[in-house]
């Protein structure tokens, strides 16, 4: 009788389909994955440790670099946690601007996911279309915040500046044309037999397993759980927007694909509503301990100059305590747990990374399936290693 042996192969960390530096050790029985062990940490930068030596304002740019496809969402989660700690109210206009930017960012993040995911599977065309639309979003960010990939637009207490003139027209133009573009992607993919063969009934995770593994975001909703932080624990005025939570039923790659497509449509609708109903008023809190004074005053008024200096060099001192605030980022529930000892630096800043927990369920999804399906499953859970490794 022939001897049965498994073969161990390394996939990654330098592999185009692992979306970064993920290393998977696969034990193969022929072409079937018998065991998968993810190895992470290649991109570990010690963000949580770094934040402990920075003032609260200085930690904002660190958050951009976690999930670098979703910088606005990361900013939002962090500033919400600090604002909760401080117990301050944010002006309505700033809240709406935050929602608008977070949803545009979600669209951009999902567009990267769609382009690269189908590229992994072998469809070379869609990425050119998705990156074309993503470019529109990034141009809007560039005008609004000055940065494209890491805009650092949000501030504790509000946003860094109001919309520049003419940007609302660009957002409107984007919102009006985007549904058409989604239809284009769907024409290329949704009924494409080759695409469906690769993603239907692949990488299945059941509802119960998804919950037990701590999976969140579109990956959880693909398994049929109607759970979205924007609806369950609304933040930043999300309760005032009209949108639905798309869910799947089987929990395979196809369901996650459909969920994200529908999510982009709803995000587009939210941006439209935010733009229509954008209230007038200030874009940052008037609390003098937290917000920087207007630049014009700094050069004319000695008090404002002192205030600027104090805030930039010392920051502010929130009360003692601990808070947890989370948002529904493009990948899932992104949370910040901040422990304050009453000083001007966070005593402990813990990031709850959605991709980290989503990835921990990967072996469950791929064990017993073909090695080719590993590629489509990794693509479908949409991991970003910058956030997993922190």
């Amino acid at each position, binding site marked *: 009788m022939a001897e049965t042996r498994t073969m161990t192969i390394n996939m990654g960390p330098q592999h185009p389909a692992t979306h970064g530096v993920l290393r998977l050790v696969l034990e193969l029985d022929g072409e079937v994955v018998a065991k998968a062990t993810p190895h992470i940490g290649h991109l570990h930068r010690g963000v949580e*440790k770094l934040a402990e030596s920075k003032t609260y304002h200085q930690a904002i740019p660190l958050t951009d670099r976690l999930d670098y496809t979703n910088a606005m969402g990361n900013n939002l989660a962090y500033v919400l946690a600090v604002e909760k700690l401080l117990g301050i109210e944010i002006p309505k206009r700033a809240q709406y601007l935050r929602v608008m930017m977070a949803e545009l960012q979600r669209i951009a993040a999902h567009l990267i996911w769609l382009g690269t995911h189908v590229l992994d599977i072998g469809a070379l065309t869609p990425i050119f279309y998705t990156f074309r639309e993503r470019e529109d979003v990034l141009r809007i960010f560039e005008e609004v915040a000055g940065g494209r990939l890491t805009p650092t637009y949000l501030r504790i207490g509000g946003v860094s500046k109001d919309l520049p003139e003419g940007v609302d027209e660009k957002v409107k133009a984007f919102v009006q044309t985007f549904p058409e573009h989604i239809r284009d992607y769907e024409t290329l993919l949704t009924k494409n037999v080759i695409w469906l063969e690769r993603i239907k009934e692949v990488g299945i995770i059941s509802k119960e397993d998804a919950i037990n593994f701590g999976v969140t975001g579109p990956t959880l909703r693909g398994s049929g759980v109607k759970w979205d932080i924007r609806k369950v624990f609304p933040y930043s005025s999300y309760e005032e927007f009209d949108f639905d939570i798309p869910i799947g039923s089987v929990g395979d790659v196809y369901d996650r694909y459909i969920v994200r497509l529908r999510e982009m449509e709803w995000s587009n609708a939210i941006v439209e509503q935010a733009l229509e109903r954008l209230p007038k008023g200030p874009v940052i809190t008037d609390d003098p301990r937290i917000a920087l004074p207007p630049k014009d005053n700094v050069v004319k008024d000695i008090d404002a100059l002192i205030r600027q200096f104090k805030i930039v060099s010392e920051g502010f001192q929130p009360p003692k305590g601990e808070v947890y605030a989370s948002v529904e980022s493009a990948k899932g529930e992104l949370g910040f747990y901040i422990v304050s000892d009453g000083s001007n630096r966070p005593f402990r800043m813990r990031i709850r990374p959605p991709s980290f927990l989503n990835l921990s369920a990967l072996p469950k999804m791929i064990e017993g399936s073909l090695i080719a399906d590993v590629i489509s499953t990794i693509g479908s859970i949409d991991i970003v290693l910058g956030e997993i490794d922190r």
Partner: protein
Amino acid sequence: MEEVNLTIKKLKEKFPTSILDRKTFRGEVTVTVPKKDIFGICKFLHSDPDLQYQFLTDLCGVDFFPETPRFEVVYTLCSFKNKERLRLKAKVGESESILSVESVWKAANWLEREVYDLFGISFENHPDLRRILLWDGYEGYPLRKDFPVEGPDFDKPFVPEV
């Protein structure tokens, strides 16, 4: 005073001596429990039909050096049924260990590995307690307060085993 929070009420009934401290800050409930009871309490919170904390949102460590006991392990739980969050805490001393909750929530597997990796707190009954972000053979636990942010670079190049 009549207890309004259902979770605390049920916990008090089931584990009358286990609630060491209970705080509400900015609407968030934090309960401190002894570390020996953590597994039983988690199992109860997870399986009780009225509470159903089926979701382990987060598990992390905090270092309060030079206090003793030095560490806190913080569990952020979420109930899909009641749409509620609960924070559980257990104090753990240096070179002590705490029971793993991996058999209650699979999510704890990687989260506990991370706490082990960055704080050096070990978890009993964990099926696969290895470093996760740093490599095997790394010395020190970076998120401890006495670990310096700056210092000399390591001189041992890392060669992964296959």
